């Protein structure tokens, strides 16, 4: 077993005050997919930018395939491919021209760039659209081209920064299939995502990151069992009843039941079995739920379980508007 990526104690502060990363360490085994899971602004992209030589950390060290990233940036740039969350491709060029450009700038030469371009257009099902400028491409096609561009030089390490954010479910599934194929081919992938489902499906190892800290690390199975594999959500008629329901249901939940307005959320290990018990207990307490859903845990649930608070976007939405405004001003 060898490490493809090694990150040791890196910290980064922007403009002298915003602490984007605080003593982050992790290692990625060669030939595996590593997922960095976290909400917007948690520091995922900063980690990717540091590993891809775009940013320098204030302290700590990073290695890619054994090479110190800060000492040998030029060599390191020949080893990885990067596909960003903003689909960085040239609007005015065709799909073929975009891949040719990246091939030439990776110093593959005209012939090899052309050969590689043909292969990738085929692999990403863009052959029919190859001579159209990108303005005519759909969001899903752009992302596919962006990932294809990252693969032109056959990198051993691939960085995918939120590859499916903003895509419709169909395009997302298509992209997941492509990523799964790549990993079969031995490429090491560092994936950042806001979706637990995505990390769960693609990654062998996940680090959960929050406000620049790694707050949990493990296999998807370990993370999910630590927090409970299923979420039971009961809706009742008013907040008071919800609190009452949370009290009677507490013994069933792996974590403190969470009350949001008129809803109670339980995270449990054995969803179907516990659901029967939960309904029985509510019935005995003369509480009649108006809604009941069983679902897979989302990133929000993971966060709630790990930090005791919800991700920023959710908690902001629930705050009274004046408080929200005040907080924004402080930022």
């Amino acid at each position, binding site marked *: 077993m060898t*490490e493809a990526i090694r990150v040791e104690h890196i910290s980064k502060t922007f403009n002298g005050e915003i602490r984007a990363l605080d003593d982050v360490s992790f290692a990625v085994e060669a030939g595996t997919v590593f997922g960095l899971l976290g909400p917007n602004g948690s520091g995922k992209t900063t980690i990717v930018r540091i590993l891809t030589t775009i940013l320098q950390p204030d302290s700590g060290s990073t290695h890619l395939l054994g090479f110190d990233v800060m000492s040998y940036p030029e060599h390191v740039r020949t080893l990885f491919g990067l596909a960003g969350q903003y689909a960085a491709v040239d609007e005015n060029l065709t799909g073929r021209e975009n891949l040719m450009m990246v091939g030439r700038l990776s110093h593959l030469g005209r012939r090899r760039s052309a050969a590689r371009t043909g292969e990738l257009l085929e692999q990403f099902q863009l052959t029919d659209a190859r001579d159209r400028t990108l303005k005519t491409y759909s969001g899903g096609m752009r992302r596919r081209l962006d990932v294809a561009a990252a693969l032109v030089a056959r990198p051993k390490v691939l960085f995918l920064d939120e590859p499916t954010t903003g895509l419709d479910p169909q395009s997302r599934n298509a992209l997941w299939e492509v990523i799964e194929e790549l990993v079969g081919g031995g490429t090491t992938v560092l994936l950042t995502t806001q979706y637990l489902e995505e990390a769960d499906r693609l990654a062998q190892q996940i680090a959960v990151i929050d406000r620049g800290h790694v707050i949990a690390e493990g296999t998807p199975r370990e993370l999910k069992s630590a927090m409970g594999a299923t979420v039971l959500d009961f809706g009742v008629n008013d907040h008071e009843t919800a609190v009452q329901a949370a009290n009677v249901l507490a013994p069933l939940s792996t974590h403190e039941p969470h009350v949001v307005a008129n809803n109670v959320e339980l995270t449990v290990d054995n969803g179907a079995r516990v659901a029967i018990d939960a309904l029985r207990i509510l019935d005995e307490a003369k509480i009649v739920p108006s809604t009941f859903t069983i679902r897979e845990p989302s990133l929000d649930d993971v966060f709630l379980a790990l930090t005791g608070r919800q991700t920023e976007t959710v908690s902001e939405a629930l705050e009274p508007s004046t408080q929200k405004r005040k907080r924004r001003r402080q930022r």
Partner: protein
Amino acid sequence: MTVAASLVPPHALRASPFRRLGLLLADTGVIMWRNLLGYVRIPEAAFFSSVQPVMFVLLFRYVFGGAIRIPGVSYVNYLIPGIFVQTVAFGAIGTSIGLAQDLHTGLIERFRALPMSRSAVLAGRTLADLVRNVVVMGIITGVGFAVGFRLHTNVLAFIAALGILLLFAYALSWGFALIGLSAPNAETAQVMSFPVLFPMTFASTAFVPVNTMPGWLQGFVRNQPVSLVVNCTRALLNGGPTATYVEKAIIWSVGLFLVLSPLAVRKYRRMR
């Protein structure tokens, strides 16, 4: 897992200075090619660089021209050198807008993560602008002759004038590259460019003789670089003493290039 020792890239992979220069030229060529394709494919850009100078020629020749009397030379011969300089100056806005756009879309970020030469992004962009300026000057020359412009000197002087204009335009490109790299987006880059361009091109000797302007303005107009390059072009196309004009225009162009290009490169390298 084994702890990976820190490796050192094999010496063979580290490029020699000779190979580095080769790669810089190749990368610059690729970036130039992609920018030129952009110019051809964006209708607004093509319009801005080719139709606009033609409109200026026609407007000044037929609308304002009748009211402006220049002793010793026809107005159209007075005008065309001014149009040349005004057009390359306005064209430089394209540099700032294009770079701001590439920054905004994340394309520059992709370039920074590629094993390409770091100077190639700016060099390729400014050289693409140079090529575009050659084409635009060809258009102005054609339209100029069609509306009555006549060369009073010789072809060599004409070529020398175009050479100096291109040098001046190339220096300006670097200044506008700096603006583009400092702007948060393309719209702001455009807004930031105009307050520089309007006074420089209109408060100059490009369209009207300086002695018709108020005294307090004349000092600025006589000595600012756009006027000096216009005067130089005029001397080379219409005849008269050229030496001091040519000297001043070249000194200004080279000086602007030597100041602006390191500033733009520094801005690019420091960007995060």
